[in-house]
């Protein structure tokens, strides 16, 4: 019986039958995965018919929180959504912060498993006692904030939190998102399309169950230490002021800011689109996730639009990556994408790829219904984004994602798609951050950094690198040596943050979480003995399970790769000039540490 930390219950919902079942969380089962992301992957592995069409009623859509979610721990604000990805056909999942997770935690459900497909558009109202299935024709086509407001008004309750899809999810854009807290996005791998395919507009939660702790004062003591670690961190002010948008100038300074679709790593107008400029010109206040004392999110107002954010990926994606130097335009796009429910990374990749291919003459305007677009052409970017959202005209093809779209074009054009396993890669040129390069290649949801976030390689902490990873090179961003060891460490911490759950910026980038601290937090919160060694073992098992699951989805060793550009074309200017990445060797080393066979 799970009394502390955990909610202790699992909610199973069948949309076709409009029935639900409440079960107790199996203590042994949950102990082997902690909660959150690892719990979802295991559930998917056990329950999903793996060869199913991701957009069919057979796919599962699983929401999970962890034993520390919604607790006193700063930024214990995350939930993970997992399904078979319609974009990549492999493991799909995405986490988001804000306020949704803490409210879901108060319903007492550790995991909500949704199966089947509704015959009409509905939303689910989940409370302590179960689920109400509510038909909502009035919500069709509504954006995220509208949907949230309508549901809260209907429920006459403004503590209700809502995770919804926008028009893009309803239209089954393969990289559509689920968005909660107005602007908090489960962005990657098309979880919005899975929700849309089930005719599920939103999952609303409101709970009244308490989060209780086994050793209340002991837990408080551990939390206080973490609060101090955050407040005393040398990046506190910088992160408070800019959040992740600080990376615009930081990455540009080392020559790895994706510019004109990774053709360059230095952006000469970075000051115009920087986090600094955003903070001083358009930010009106800071925003925060549940119970966080960093407050690194921001709210901005421009003439006709306003929103929370943007984070670095969206800011870079809609500025330098596609050649746009107009900051307010990027802010307008941030609001539009969040409200329509499109993933900014995959959206900017498809736009950037078309721009580069047209510049190189690999795609002609008559290939795209007479559409042509050059770097930074704002009106056309806007038009494309709208066409994708509503699957209008060529938008219908673009909505399948860059990898599928590229199948219609030459090999040369296909090679320019910046993707791994069908997932478009993030804004950070791996030629100058080799640990990140390895992470993109091996990440179990495809080209993504959050599976390991090896931020350590940017810290220059050479002695610490030698101590932790056996070589000073692990703290040298341009070195390949030591990076497999670094990634093998940080992928466990990354997974740990996703399981507890807590914020990765704090836990990992600010280097505040480790196995010892997690062990004490878990022990005091849940009363269950999670020793540091045990944690490392089960996190290792969970990473093995990701690997095994993706093998069953058809992935092979050669899919752990990077686009050829990063291996063959050195950057031509800036502090990363001349660098390429020998990814095969790094992946081999990574496999060796894991003991995985090719």
């Amino acid at each position, binding site marked *: 019986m799970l009394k502390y930390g955990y909610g202790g219950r699992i909610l199973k919902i069948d949309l076709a039958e409009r029935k639900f079942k409440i079960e107790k969380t199996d203590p042994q089962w949950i102990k082997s995965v902690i909660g959150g992301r690892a719990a979802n992957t295991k559930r998917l592995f056990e329950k999903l018919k793996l060869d199913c069409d991701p957009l069919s009623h057979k796919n599962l859509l699983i929401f999970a929180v962890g034993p520390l979610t*919604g*607790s*006193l721990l700063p930024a214990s604000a995350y939930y993970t959504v997992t399904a078979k990805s319609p974009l990549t056909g492999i493991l799909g999942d995405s986490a988001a912060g804000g*306020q949704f997770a*803490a409210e879901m935690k*108060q319903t007492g459900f550790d995991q909500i498993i949704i199966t089947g497909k509704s015959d009409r558009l509905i939303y689910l109202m989940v409370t302590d006692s179960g689920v109400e299935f509510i038909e909502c024709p009035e919500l069709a086509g509504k954006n995220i*904030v*509208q949907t*949230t*407001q309508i549901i809260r008004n209907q429920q*006459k*309750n*403004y*503590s209700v939190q809502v995770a919804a899809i926008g028009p893009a999810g309803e239209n089954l854009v393969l990289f559509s998102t689920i968005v909660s*807290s*107005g*602007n908090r996005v489960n962005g990657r791998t098309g979880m919005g399309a899975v929700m849309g395919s089930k005719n599920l507009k939103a999952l609303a939660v409101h709970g*009244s*169950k*308490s*989060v*209780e*702790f086994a050793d*209340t004062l002991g837990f*408080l003591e551990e939390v206080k230490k973490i609060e101090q670690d955050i*407040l005393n961190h040398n990046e506190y002010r910088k992160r408070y002021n800019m959040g992740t948008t600080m990376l615009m100038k930081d990455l540009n300074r080392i020559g790895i800011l994706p510019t004109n679709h990774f053709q360059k790593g230095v952006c000469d107008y970075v000051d115009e689109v920087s986090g600094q400029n955003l903070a001083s*010109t*358009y930010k*009106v*206040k*800071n*925003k*925060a*996730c*549940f*119970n*966080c*004392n960093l*407050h690194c*999110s921001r*709210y901005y*107002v*421009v003439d006709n639009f*306003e*929103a*929370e954010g943007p984070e670095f990926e969206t800011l870079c994606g809609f500025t330098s990556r596609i050649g746009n130097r107009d900051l307010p335009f990027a802010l307008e796009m941030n609001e539009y994408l969040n409200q329509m429910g499109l993933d900014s990374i995959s959206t900017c990749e498809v736009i950037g790829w078309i721009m580069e291919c047209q510049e190189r003459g690999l795609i002609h305007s008559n290939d795209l219904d007479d559409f042509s677009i050059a770097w930074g052409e704002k009106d056309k970017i806007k038009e494309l984004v709208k066409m994708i959202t509503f699957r209008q005209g060529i938008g219908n093809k673009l909505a399948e994602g860059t990898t599928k779209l590229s199948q219609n074009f030459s090999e040369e054009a296909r090679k320019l798609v910046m993707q791994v396993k069908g997932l478009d890669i993030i804004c950070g040129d791996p030629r100058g951050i080799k640990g990140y390069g390895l992470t993109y290649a091996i990440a179990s949801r495809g080209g993504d950094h959050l599976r390991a976030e090896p931020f350590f390689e940017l810290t220059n902490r050479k002695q610490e690198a030698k101590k932790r990873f056996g070589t000073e090179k692990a703290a040298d961003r341009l070195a390949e040596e030591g990076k497999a060891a670094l990634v093998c460490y940080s992928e466990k911490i990354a997974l740990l943050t996703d399981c507890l759950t807590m914020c990765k910026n704090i836990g990992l980038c600010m280097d505040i979480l480790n196995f010892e601290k997690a062990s004490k937090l878990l022990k005091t919160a849940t009363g269950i003995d999670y020793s540091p060694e045990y944690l490392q073992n089960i996190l290792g098992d969970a990473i093995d399970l990701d690997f095994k699951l993706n093998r069953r989805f058809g992935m092979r060793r050669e899919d752990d790769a990077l686009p050829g550009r990063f291996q063959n074309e050195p950057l031509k200017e800036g502090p990363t000039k001349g660098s390429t990445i020998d990814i095969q060797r790094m992946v081999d080393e990574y496999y060796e540490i894991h003991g995985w066979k090719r």
Partner: protein
Amino acid sequence: MIKVNIGKCTGCRRCETTCAFFHTGKVNHHLSRIKVLNLYETGIDGPIVCVQCQERYCLRCPVEALSIGAMGQVIASPTVCTFCGYCEESCPIGAIEIFDVIVYVCDLCGGKPKCVEACTEKAIVFDENGERPSLADIREETKKMNPSQKRQFYLNKLGMEVRKQWRKQIA
């Protein structure tokens, strides 16, 4: 009393979490005496807590279970209270609420409010001699609402001023 500066609130809800935790050892916003709303349509976040209004509508309790303490705080007697819900209905801003046979209203933590300590943004401060506002106008508008709706109405009203400031700020 607790004074709130909505413009500084980031919506982190640390005041709410801390209030519940230090009174009960648990985290649950229903157990908190200060309640935060995040209004995504306007970007306004803010805590709602007893403002010690001039009118003291809640004191018209039919069984006289409520009284005023030395710091102006509302004190609910758990033995006299019949949980009839009068106080909850009469508060114009949803700052007093019954949950699971306990009346939740700000008790100022005996003079050192934990929520104030938890707020790193100084969006809430403790002001012992602050001027008590009138809620007569608000009461007329929120009479038929439940506590959550009242909080939303009140926060929206306060938020309108903040949004005007934002416009000036970026101009």
